[in-house]
């Protein structure tokens, strides 16, 4: 007899049926197992990262050597680079698609959906997500969304070219640029699918973390990774719907003659458009109401993961766990009320500018505390510089460096000068480009043994780290200075401006560093594939870490925890308890054996 489950709400055996799935297709392709779905997200995201990187290669070729004729590339891309010379329209499509793919289809898929799906049930002690079928659906919609986005390269006019922010009128008037034809329509459809998929997975994250925690896993015993996924999922649920509304309205403007974002008297290609009454600023408001929380949706999991990798290689608890949780919550709240700082030059009232400056600079308080606590976590630790640890240290370095740039951009007075220059490009590549990229690599090296039962090669991992960290820092640190010299972003032929010609040398250095960075990723891909097949077999807990996923086999079985769910007795950072030989205590060890310190 069905009943409203009150006490029985906790479905301990939910997901136990997963173990019964036998067929290959149900187990590895249309699987409802969160681990398989997580890995599917990660592989899809890595593939999209390769695409996004190739786009960046083309961008850097153009900026480093604007007049050079790339005959071979011209043969590969006859439409955009006929005869080896890039067309301006193709350049615009490149920057648009590079941004879109990296933000939504690489970082979101790998770091948030991929690791979120893989880690949340394992770390809270559940057999699966709350609603495994919805989870599977979310992945397949995500894949469809990625395919639609890729398909937009092949339609007439090419891919969308209005920037990843898709500001109207450029994005709303099909005759404005070639990329504003079917490319832009597919961009909107793909984003709608992406939002649907992201909503489904966020609903699962929230419901799982609320309802399926194992016995003893109170909120304040959750790892910072789970906390960060939790806050990030809530932010996603709150921030994405207004973009859905905006996307629908944009689609109507493009195809059904409405004027939501189009003002009166707009002339495009010498033709007066019939639209009247709308405002392009409305799109900016709606877009950034999503856009700003979205960067925290991406960066919070990066920071949470960094905080969880640190203790395994310092052999001491993370510094200020409670404060870190409060900081994550504070940043989550503040991130919802600062979207206007992307619009300082839009003619905003100085009073609003003052408010958005103040609110933005408030974010630096919890974020600085968070960063300093990460450094505090290193203090007095016995550091083991594994690849995962190196990447985590890189996260701290990028977070600090990029964060300083944010102080300038968050301030309306300084932003007036720096808006839409390479200062902004440098800043956000450090933050949602760099912090998240390094955290993704850290997470991949750290959890690879758990996912695949084999370890990645450490020596090549370290080579990969240095060849990623140094060129990345070079590229985007230098771009800050390009911005200070006034170089605007998204310019195809900046050399046409006399005052920018002296930046040519710097642009060559940046291009060389960027190509080195991209080349170095081949080492990672080779290492990843080689380790999948030939890597050293990993034991259950190779890093001697404390969270629940390390108490089960590598890779964990379907249903994760065998017959009985784990019972949690302590927080996830029980390292080096005084008077005990083992320098780490898994969360499941009872207090009778080792005292609980927090």
């Amino acid at each position, binding site marked *: 007899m*069905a*009943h*409203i*489950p*009150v*006490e*029985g*709400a*906790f*479905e301990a055996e939910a997901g136990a049926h997963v173990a019964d799935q036998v067929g290959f297709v149900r187990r590895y392709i249309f699987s409802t197992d969160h681990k398989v779905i997580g890995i599917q997200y990660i592989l899809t995201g890595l593939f999209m990262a390769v695409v996004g990187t190739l786009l960046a290669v083309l961008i850097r070729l153009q900026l480093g050597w604007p007049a050079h004729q790339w005959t071979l590339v011209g043969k590969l891309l006859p439409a955009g680079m006929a005869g080896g010379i890039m067309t301006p329209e193709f350049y615009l499509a490149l920057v648009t698609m590079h941004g879109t793919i990296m933000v939504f289809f690489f970082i979101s898929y790998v770091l948030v959906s991929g690791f979120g799906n893989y880690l949340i049930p394992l770390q809270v*002690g559940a057999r699966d997500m*709350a*609603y495994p079928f919805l989870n599977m659906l979310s992945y397949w919609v995500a894949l469809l969304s990625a395919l639609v986005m890729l398909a937009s390269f092949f339609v007439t006019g090419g891919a969308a070219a209005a920037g990843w922010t898709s500001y109207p009128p450029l994005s709303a008037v099909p005759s404005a640029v070639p990329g504003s034809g079917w490319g832009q329509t597919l961009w909107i459809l793909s984003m709608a699918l992406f939002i649907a998929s992201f*909503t489904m997975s*966020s*609903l*699962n994250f*929230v*419901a*799982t973390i*609320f*309802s*399926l*925690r*194992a*016995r*003893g*896993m*109170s*909120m304040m*015993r959750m790892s910072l990774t789970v906390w960060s996924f939790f806050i990030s999922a809530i932010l996603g*649920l*709150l921030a*994405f*719907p*207004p*973009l*859905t*509304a*905006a996307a*629908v*309205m944009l689609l*109507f403007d493009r195809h*059904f*003659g*409405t*004027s*939501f974002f189009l003002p009166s008297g707009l002339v495009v290609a010498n033709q007066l458009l*019939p*639209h*009247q*009454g*709308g*405002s392009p600023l*409305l799109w900016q*408001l*709606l877009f950034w*109401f999503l856009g700003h929380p979205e960067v925290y949706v991406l960066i919070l999991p990066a920071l949470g993961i960094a905080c969880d990798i640190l203790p395994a290689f310092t052999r001491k608890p993370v510094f200020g766990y409670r404060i870190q949780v409060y900081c994550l919550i504070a940043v989550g709240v503040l991130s919802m009320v600062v979207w206007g700082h992307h619009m300082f030059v839009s003619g905003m009232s100085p009073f609003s500018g003052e408010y958005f400056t103040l609110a933005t600079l408030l974010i630096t308080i919890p974020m600085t505390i968070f960063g300093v606590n990460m450094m505090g976590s290193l203090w007095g630790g016995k550091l083991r510089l594994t690849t995962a640890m190196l990447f985590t240290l890189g996260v701290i370095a990028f977070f600090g460096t990029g964060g300083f740039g944010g102080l300038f951009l968050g301030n309306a007075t300084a932003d007036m000068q720096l808006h839409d220059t390479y200062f902004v490009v440098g800043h956000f590549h450090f933050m949602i480009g760099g912090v998240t990229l390094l955290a993704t690599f850290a997470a991949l090296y750290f959890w690879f043994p758990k996912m695949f039962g084999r370890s990645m090669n450490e020596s090549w991992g370290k080579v990969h780290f240095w060849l990623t960290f140094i060129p990345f820092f070079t590229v985007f640190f230098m771009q800050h200075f390009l911005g200070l010299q006034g170089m605007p972003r998204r310019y195809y032929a900046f050399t046409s401006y006399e005052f920018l010609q002296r930046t040519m040398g710097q642009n060559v250095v940046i291009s060389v560093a960027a190509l080195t960075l991209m080349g170095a990723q081949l080492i990672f891909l080779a290492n990843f594939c080689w380790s999948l097949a030939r890597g050293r077999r990993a034991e259950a807990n190779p890093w001697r870490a404390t969270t629940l996923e390390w108490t089960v086999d590598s890779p964990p079985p379907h249903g994760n925890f065998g017959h009985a769910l784990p019972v*949690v007795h302590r927080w996830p950072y029980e390292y080096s308890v005084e008077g005990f030989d083992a320098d780490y205590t898994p969360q499941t060890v009872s207090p009778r054996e080792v005292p609980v310190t927090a």
Partner: protein
Amino acid sequence: MAQAAEQMLDRWSGGVCPFEAGWRKVMMWAFIITDGLLFAGLLGSYGYARIMSARWPDQAAVFDLRLIALMTFILISSSATMANAVGAARDEGARRSVSLRWLLLTILGGAAFLGMQAYEWTHLIGAGARLDGNPWGDPLFASYFFILTGFHGTHVLIGVIVLTALAIRWQKRLASREGVELAGLYWHFVDLVWVFIFTLFYLV
């Protein structure tokens, strides 16, 4: 007092859902919040456009407010019947047919609302309202009318379909009591959205 606090802490310490509900209800609430923000986005945009507009039409001259008031009354009544359906479903002593009867009444209310909305759309389109213009003033007036009521109407339509499926499954003893409750949450949410649209678009 201390005991109550302890019990509350216990509920958060893992092994049970902290709210007196299963994950389904948690998920439904989260979905309602996110879906609510979709309408917030649309209504916010509408407010922005309306404040900017110099020639927003007088709604009383365009709409037959008696019809709209009747639609609103029917939809709100359907919320009441839905609440009765949920109440009867939760009551273990009640016969299943009691809840079924309330469910059917709710479906009827939803269908009546949709029919009246279809009538209103036909009427306005006949009078010259289009997505890109209308005879009464600012073209955005009709654009926002169609997009707001269209989005809401789609929600009602989905609600009617879900309720119909639920009624069949309830009759066949396939639907759980919690299932009725979840559908009820969604239905109340859709009605609440209409109250906002009614107030902000038709009345103010």
